[in-house]
């Protein structure tokens, strides 16, 4: 009955109910959209950055990441090639051997990073093939090099020319080789553009005097949610005394920091949003309590206990909050879904800068149930707390005074 009374009271002042429900709806809608957009943008950015080169997870010999030297290369045994068997969420294993070398043409010398790759799987994750600006992509074990445009420019080389590489190989052996340039790749990042040289994996291993060895395995994982299970699976199945398994957060701490900073900035926006909403809801609750004082007085006079009355009014506000929250979700779902499928596309300088780095300037929203539920729950809890005000008011209400007005 209290429930029925509360329910009918909601429809008593339709205008006020509409305003309250609408403000709750708006809060849930706006907060959900904001979070979906912000999280989605970050997810997209992270996945772009990560899949650009690093991968969400990498496996190295223990200690490699702290001290990146070719001496910490390790044998690419079959069990490592087939990491998918241990961690089924891994799409591809990208074996790499990386170290630094001097590239020269006789006249010019330049420091470069020489990376041995498996061309096929490398392309699957990093889309390296799509960066070819001249010439052709590498085959599995041909004696040829893929050179970043900046490197070629520094050295005055083009496709068909020969690049000479000199380095210190595995455990100090002399490394030297010359390779025809088969293709040219363009990286938006100037950093990579002036130092990347790719060789097929066996060729690079031979160059470094490290046959059968690699320095890292980059793992392609499609869904960020699969990172944690993969880490868990690998850490439990690999010999952690010999190998280190790192996720993108370990590999790219700067990116994590940028994301944290951005989220911290957004908290202020959320707080302001919630404050506005809270004042709006509280205003209507206050008005309602004031308007109904006489009625509360009558009800207590005829024998309704304060807790019964308080509970009724609380239920009333709670139902209103629930209604607003549900409507808010219903309103936000299609909008967020729309911008998930049709990401917001930025244009202008910012977009150009991003595209130069090879990133699309698009911001798909993240479409995940927990976003809507969290925001709806937050707004609902906020309403439930504000709804305590009438209870407090009713506890102190003196019927005689309430009815004198």
């Amino acid at each position, binding site marked *: 009955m209290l429930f029925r*009374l509360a329910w009918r009271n909601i429809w*008593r002042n339709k205008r006020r109910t509409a305003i309250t429900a609408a403000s709750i709806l708006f809060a849930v809608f706006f907060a959900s959209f904001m979070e979906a957009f912000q999280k989605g943008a970050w997810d997209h950015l992270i996945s772009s950055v990560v899949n650009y080169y690093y991968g969400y997870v990498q496996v190295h010999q223990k200690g490699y990441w702290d001290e990146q030297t070719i001496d910490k290369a390790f044998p690419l045994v079959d069990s490592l090639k087939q990491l998918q068997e241990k961690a089924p969420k891994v799409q591809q294993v990208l074996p790499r051997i990386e170290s630094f070398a001097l590239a020269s043409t006789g006249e010019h010398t330049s420091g470069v990073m020489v990376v041995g790759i498996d061309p096929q799987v490398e392309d699957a994750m990093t889309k390296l093939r799509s960066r070819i600006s001249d010439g052709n992509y590498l085959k599995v074990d041909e004696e040829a090099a893929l050179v970043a445009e900046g490197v070629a420019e520094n050295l005055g080389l083009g496709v068909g020319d020969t690049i000479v590489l000199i380095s210190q190989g595995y455990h100090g052996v002399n490394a030297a080789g010359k390779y025809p340039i088969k293709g040219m790749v363009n990286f938006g990042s100037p950093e990579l553009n002036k130092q990347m040289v790719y060789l097929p994996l066996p060729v690079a291993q031979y160059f470094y005097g490290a046959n059968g060895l690699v320095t890292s395995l980059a793992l392609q994982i499609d869904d960020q949610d699969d990172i944690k299970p993969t880490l868990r699976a690998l850490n439990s199945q690999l010999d952690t005394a010999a190998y280190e398994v790192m996720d993108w957060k370990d590999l790219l701490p700067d990116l994590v920091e940028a994301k944290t900073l951005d989220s911290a900035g957004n908290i202020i926006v959320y707080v302001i949003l919630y404050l506005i909403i809270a004042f709006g809801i509280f205003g209507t609750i206050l008005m309602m309590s004031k308007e109904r004082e006489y*009625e509360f007085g*009558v009800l*207590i006079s005829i*024998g309704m*206990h304060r807790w019964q009355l308080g509970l009724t009014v609380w239920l009333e506000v709670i139902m209103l909050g629930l209604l607003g929250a549900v409507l808010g979700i219903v309103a936000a779902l299609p909008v967020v879904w729309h911008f998930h499928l049709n990401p917001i596309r930025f244009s202008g300088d910012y977009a150009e800068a991003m595209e130069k780095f090879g990133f699309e300037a698009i911001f798909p929203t993240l479409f995940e149930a927990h976003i809507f539920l969290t925001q709806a729950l937050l707004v609902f809890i906020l309403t439930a707390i504000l709804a305590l005000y009438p209870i407090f008011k009713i506890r102190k209400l003196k019927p*005689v005074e309430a009815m004198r007005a």
Partner: protein
Amino acid sequence: MKVITTKGVVKIYNPDKIPVKALDGVDLEIKEGEFTAIVGPSGSGKTTLLNVIGGLDRPDEGDVEVGGHDIDAMSDNKLIDFRKEHIGFVFQAYNLIPVLTARENVEFVMLLQNRPKKERRERAEELLRAVGLEDKMDKRPSELSGGQQQRVAVARALAPKPDFILADEPTANLDSKSTANLLDIMARLNEEEKITFIFSTHDQRVIDRARRVVTLVDGKVATDEVRG
């Protein structure tokens, strides 16, 4: 049988600032079956007296006994239950819960008493018939006239079978026809069902219908007249 006894009741408002002695030593006895009007000029203490008798307000001095219970000694919560079981209230206006129908309003107190649904229903219908509203049971207060609303309020006040009904200016907002109609119903309930009514009023036509008239002046009982 005495239903109400007050002895030396004093009620002072604003004791800190300019004190107002709303009641200044009221001794009164009300017996079962009375049909009593409390009259007096505005500010003479009628409402205050009814509130004190009804356990809505506590006196500063004196004793109030209702149905043999010392209501001063009761806690606030106990007093709420006591009112629910023993006293029916009719206020000047806005007695009813706007979102409930006439029938639901009458059932409401019985609901607070956890009476079974069937009993609630039957009693509500019986009472609404008694106040002549059998065809308005499912109407909400906003669909009823002021007089009809007051009749529903009387029916609601009667629902828990209280010891007596307190009505503070029940006809103040009614036209003369509705006033006469409400008084007819109250008088009939008093005669046929032996319901005790204590009501305050300014209205001479209402005073004329009372069988006992207690006149307050400045918080004191000035005259107390019982008619044949």
